[in-house]
């Protein structure tokens, strides 16, 4: 693949309100891009699902639906991959402190499964503390080789 094909092209770079409408819009935008560049329906669904979960975390758990806090959403294409960066303005999140949702004693917990599903549905996922103190997550899903 040439360098030009590997260049990152930013498709969307927005600061979104902390609402469920922002969650819906982000999921839809990502699924549409995935379909446009040739992801099969199941892969587009998985990427959209992962983005929805990450956006819910940002809107609900990070920003607490605050009208004064925004979610930074960046959608990019890099060669055969779609990259998404989501950053909230919350208090930060320490994944190590989260109970293991697969542990026998936690299976009946009502919440705490989102990150596990994100990891299952994308090829790369990372969480870090943003410069603002909030949480910044990165997701990448790639077209299968030879697609």
């Amino acid at each position, binding site marked *: 693949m040439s360098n030009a094909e590997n260049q990152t092209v930013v498709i969307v770079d927005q600061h979104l309100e902390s609402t*469920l409408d922002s969650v819906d819009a982000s999921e839809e935008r990502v699924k549409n891009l995935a379909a446009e560049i040739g992801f099969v329906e199941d892969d587009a669904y998985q990427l959209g*699902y992962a983005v*929805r979960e990450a956006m*819910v975390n940002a809107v609900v758990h990070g920003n607490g639906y605050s009208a004064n806090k925004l979610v930074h959403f960046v959608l990019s294409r890099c060669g055969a991959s779609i990259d998404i960066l989501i950053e909230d303005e919350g208090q930060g999140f320490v994944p190590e402190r989260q109970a293991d949702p697969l542990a026998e004693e936690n299976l009946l917990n009502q919440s705490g499964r989102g990150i596990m599903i994100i990891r299952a549905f994308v090829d790369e996922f990372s969480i870090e503390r943003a410069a603002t103190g909030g949480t910044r997550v990165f997701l990448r899903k790639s077209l299968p080789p030879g697609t």
Partner: protein
Amino acid sequence: MSVKLTTRQIGDVTVIDAAGRITLGEGSSTFRDSIKELTAKGHKKVLLNLGEVSYIDSSGIGELVSGFTTVSNAGGQLKLLKLTKRIQDLLQITKLYTIFEVFDDEAAGLASFN
């Protein structure tokens, strides 16, 4: 479309036919309220048909678990019917297939309560 729930009574089993999306917000609260209402009315055998559910997020999955717990705590059973491939995959990833009894066939699901 948010989730639409329709209830049928077959013998002593309450079948809930769910259709649409069970996601954070209206969809998950509709589901939660419905299960609580049924339990409060004494319905203890609940078969939840998810065959027409097009999408369920982690919040919706949490509501399934919560519904299971609510019915169990009341001395009843909540079982699942007709899972789509995507919901099956989610139950595999979350290991919840070890919690729920799942049926593809309604008659088998109904019979399992007796």
